[in-house]
């Protein structure tokens, strides 16, 4: 079956590539000294190989994208991601338009993470209008459905956002945005539901000895959040851009149904998403165009996040009776150089995460280097 799949895959791949408008290939090599983002810093290297194909049909664009990520030290966490989708833009005047997209996605992990294999469907409707030549109003609605192999995590979520920006002659842009989101877990939880990690190295190998223990008395099945974002951007000359941004998020109802929330580097974890926390985030970023037209971005972010419903534990995994709270400082820098047919990327980030749960008191270094190569088919219009 595997050989047949590879065979069919290769043929279809070539067929599609030749008929598509474009084919894009990318390779990224990532390296970190803290893949699981906790106090037991575990090193790993992650290779990411991806392709993308798209084709326009009149006003509709169809695309498919696949990527395989391999972890050298934790190969049982390797995964393949495939999505296929279409989008459409409908202008209502020369100053306003609707945008719609529908995307289906499958994520397939190897043994350690098979419970999180998932299929999902995402719908997005967006509206953008120029209120004047210097101000823009945007509105988005999104609907996500996600089904996991372990159905406990299945959910439907929806979000609404409204943003407004204004440009001033001082070359300053002000932007504000409000967001509302609702995540509804499709299955009620029971106290019997415990997912154990297939232990590959014990408690101190870099992961807790379990991933999630759903709460025993989880009232309701949904989380509702509201957030406010603000941004000030300033242009300085033709080669420098600077911005300061802030975000504050509140829980309107519900709380996390898991007793533990984890984030891994480059590997998605279903316990952590934008619904997992309340708190604030502040950031500053400078963008510079340096010699040889290399784009340099330097940023600093500080975040204070509380995870409602998640209690901190000591290193013996005993509850401490306080809600988990993390304070994170991130410094990141990124270089990008674009050539006519390919682009090169190089980035580095340092993260310092202080938490009242000692297991999540950590810091880490994250390196990434990549190349993206495009092939074009069709016409030069």
């Amino acid at each position, binding site marked *: 079956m595997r050989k047949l799949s590879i065979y069919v895959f290769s043929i279809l791949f070539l067929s599609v590539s030749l008929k598509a408008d474009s084919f894009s290939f990318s390779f990224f090599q990532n390296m970190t000294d803290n893949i699981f983002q906790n106090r037991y810093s575990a090193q790993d290297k992650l290779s990411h190989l991806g392709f993308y194909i798209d084709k*326009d049909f009149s006003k509709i664009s169809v695309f498919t994208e696949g990527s395989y990520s391999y972890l050298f030290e934790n190969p049982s966490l390797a995964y393949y991601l495939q999505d296929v989708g279409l989008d459409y833009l409908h202008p209502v005047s020369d100053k306003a338009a609707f945008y719609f997209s529908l995307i289906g996605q499958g994520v397939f992990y190897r043994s350690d993470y098979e419970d999180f294999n998932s299929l999902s469907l995402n719908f997005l409707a967006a509206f953008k209008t120029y209120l004047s*030549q210097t101000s823009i109003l945007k509105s988005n609605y999104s609907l996500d459905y996600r089904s996991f192999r372990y159905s406990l995590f299945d959910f439907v979520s929806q979000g609404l956002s409204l943003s407004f920006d204004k440009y001033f002659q001082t070359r300053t842009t002000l932007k504000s945005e409000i967001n509302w989101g609702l995540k509804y877990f499709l299955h009620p939880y029971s106290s019997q539901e415990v997912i154990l990690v297939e232990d590959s190295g014990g408690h101190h190998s870099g992961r807790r000895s379990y991933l999630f223990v759903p709460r025993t008395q989880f009232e309701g099945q949904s989380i509702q959040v509201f957030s406010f974002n603000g941004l000030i951007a300033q242009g300085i000359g033709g080669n420098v*851009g600077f911005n300061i941004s802030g975000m504050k998020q509140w829980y309107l109802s519900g709380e996390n149904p898991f007793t533990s929330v984890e984030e891994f580097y480059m590997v998605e974890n279903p316990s952590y998403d934008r619904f997992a926390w309340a708190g604030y985030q502040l950031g500053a970023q400078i963008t510079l165009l340096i010699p040889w037209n290399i784009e340099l971005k330097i940023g600093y972010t500080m975040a204070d996040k509380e995870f409602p419903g998640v209690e901190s534990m000591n290193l013996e995994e005993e509850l401490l009776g306080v809600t988990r709270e993390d304070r994170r400082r991130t410094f990141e820098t990124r270089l990008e150089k674009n050539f006519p047919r390919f682009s090169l990327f190089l980035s580095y980030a340092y993260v310092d995460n202080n938490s009242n749960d000692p297991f999540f008191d950590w810091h880490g270094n994250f390196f990434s280097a990549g190349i993206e190569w495009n092939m074009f088919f069709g016409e030069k219009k």
Partner: protein
Amino acid sequence: MEYVFWRKEMKKGLSLFIMFCFLGFWSLTFGQEPQKPLHFYNVDTEKKIKGTIQEIIMEPRYKDTSPFLIIRLEEKKTHQKFIVEISPVRFFTHDFHKGEELEVVGSLYSKEGSQNIIARQIRFRGEIIILRDKRGFPAWRGSDMKQKKRRKGKGF
């Protein structure tokens, strides 16, 4: 036993899912006639202009294609006005405003008495945005990291 069965089914499911994606895409692309463009990118008429944005509009430029983002730009030195064709609206993830400065490299052509430019590269807020390659092939016919974000609707 049930787990082993599920694993096999999942692998089969993965293969079928991938095949389905490609077959669906292949069937949609099969038999499509190429459209004849109204004008080409001409590398011999390339020009670099630095100016101020006067107006932003969304306008159809090619038959049966998504509308394009069009900028009316006033050159700083000469005060000459140009109509700059950026890219399909859904591709472009930056927001322009009247009064912002923009440097454009692109192919110049005249139409109905106005100076038009098909942009190949723009410099904007300290960033260089490549819209076409040096031969004029559009960058929106291909993926990059920015486009991936756009698919989730972040950029529109």
